[in-house]
């Protein structure tokens, strides 16, 4: 076990020397030249062994995106069913961005589109349409991103 560990720690160096010796044995006629080549290669490798600096972090996490940006869904004033998923069942008002989890642009667009939709007669104004109350929930208003202000 101990031997193996020591071997592992020296792996890159050991491996190279082993390869060199095997090659020297196989080609006895031009053995000296091969060894020289190997020496050259090893000297080159020593330069390459220096720590590499990467331009960016390969383990960096991907940026999280909001629901609408991720799925690429466009908000449309005629699509009242989608718009009403962002409306409270109890008060009929649009949920705030700390509940919907949308980015600033999408949230602003949502509020505008809902206003247009209500004006154009696609969406009820004071309530959520009872037809759509049982639609799947996109977010949980009781578990917001940030605490409610209650203001």
């Amino acid at each position: 076990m101990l031997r193996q560990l020591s071997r592992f720690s020296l792996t890159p160096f050991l491996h190279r020397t082993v390869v060199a010796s095997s090659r020297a044995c196989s080609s006895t006629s031009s053995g000296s030249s091969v060894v020289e080549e190997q020496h050259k290669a090893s000297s080159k490798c020593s330069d390459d062994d220096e720590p590499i600096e990467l331009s960016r972090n390969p383990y960096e996490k991907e940026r999280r995106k909001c629901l609408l940006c991720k799925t690429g869904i466009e908000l449309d004033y005629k699509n009242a069913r989608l718009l009403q998923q962002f409306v409270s069942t109890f008060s009929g008002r649009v949920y705030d961005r700390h509940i919907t989890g949308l980015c600033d642009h999408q949230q602003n667009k949502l509020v505008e589109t809902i206003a247009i939709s209500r004006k154009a007669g696609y969406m009820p104004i004071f309530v959520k349409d009872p037809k759509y109350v049982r639609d799947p929930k996109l977010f949980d208003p009781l578990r917001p991103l940030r605490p409610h202000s209650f203001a």
Partner: protein
Amino acid sequence: MPLFEFTVITKSLSKADLIKTLTRAGNVLLEKGAVIEKVESLGHRDLPYKKIAKQTGDSVYASNYFLFHAHMSSPARLEAKTILRNDLDTVHVEAVLTPTEKPEFECNLEEILKPPAERESVQKLREKQRLCHFTRQLIYKKTEKEWKAIPKSYPIAPPRD
């Protein structure tokens, strides 16, 4: 000329009357110099809120939705809208401008999810922030009070072992 979408909701009509109403609405748009690109029927739907038909005073709960895609100038749009709204067979008319170019934006949810100290908007506020004399004094007094509240020595000496 910008593209407008005219939503026309009629009261409940027979098929012949519906055709008449729609041709009338289309002619109104054409008279105002519109170029009609497309006419769509969105079907017979429940209205989101009750409407009352003109003249007869019947309440309308479900009706036909129609959509006119028309290129026209903004003042002509207003005139056409008033005429269509005063039509006896329509219940609701609205003209909505469709945006031609979508604004470029980047999703900033990652920024929102950061703790406030790391958020750029908060950092900007902090840079601009200037404390007045009294606030500075208040903070100093508060910290001083906290510092003084820490006991420096035991009020009664601990028993010896």
